[in-house]
């Protein structure tokens, strides 16, 4: 069975500072990996995804993530955060060969950007 761990439930960071949100997963098969962002009282929006190929994935709003197969990690990074980045961030994993598109979500990391 697959699982996703997000080690930090809350991450406070000052505006214009860099940030890294950590994500580790477990799976016995090849996977797709995703990061979603959720602003208050809204649905989830895809930030970026890893399907195959280059392990460094660039997404929207200046975010990027690096897939590390040996460490089963998919950490999200941004070199300089803005107030508008304050939101909940979810890491997710999906088995490439499931009969339907089941996606396992992590518990989420709340990013708070401090002015």
């Amino acid at each position: 069975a697959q699982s996703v761990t997000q080690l930090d439930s809350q991450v406070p960071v000052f505006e214009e500072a860099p940030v890294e949100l950590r994500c580790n997963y477990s799976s016995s098969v090849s996977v797709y990996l995703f990061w979603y962002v959720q602003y208050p009282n809204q649905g989830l929006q895809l930030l970026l995804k890893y399907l195959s190929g280059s392990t460094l994935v660039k997404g929207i709003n200046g975010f990027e993530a690096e897939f590390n197969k040996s460490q089963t990690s998919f950490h999200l990074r941004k070199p300089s955060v803005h107030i508008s980045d304050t939101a909940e961030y979810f890491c997710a994993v999906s088995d490439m060969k499931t009969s339907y598109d089941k996606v396992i979500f992590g518990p989420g990391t709340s990013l708070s950007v401090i002015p």
Partner: protein
Amino acid sequence: SQTIHQWPATLVQPVGSPLSLECTVEGTSNPNLYWYRQAAGRGLQLLFYSVGIGQISSEVPQNLSASRPQDRQFILSSKKLLLSDSGFYLCAWSVGLAGNNEQFFGPGTRLTVL
């Protein structure tokens, strides 16, 4: 382009009352459809998924049910709400086997059971 709608946006219901939340998708055919619940300050819990009309799979046993009367319509229901049913309900869709498992989410329904 594809869009997903959910209504109502917010709902306040007394304990023991019925529930009906609706989700519709536009711009795609035969999508996989999903209902998630998000309790306050917590992650997403998959409640139901559907790979076709009339095909519903439940992930978590509870007093909720789902139906898919049309290809792009997904309904979440309950006959009698419990306090523990409060939360943020999200509908999502994906392309299916031809896709890469990316899910697209609706705006959500905030349900408060009093």
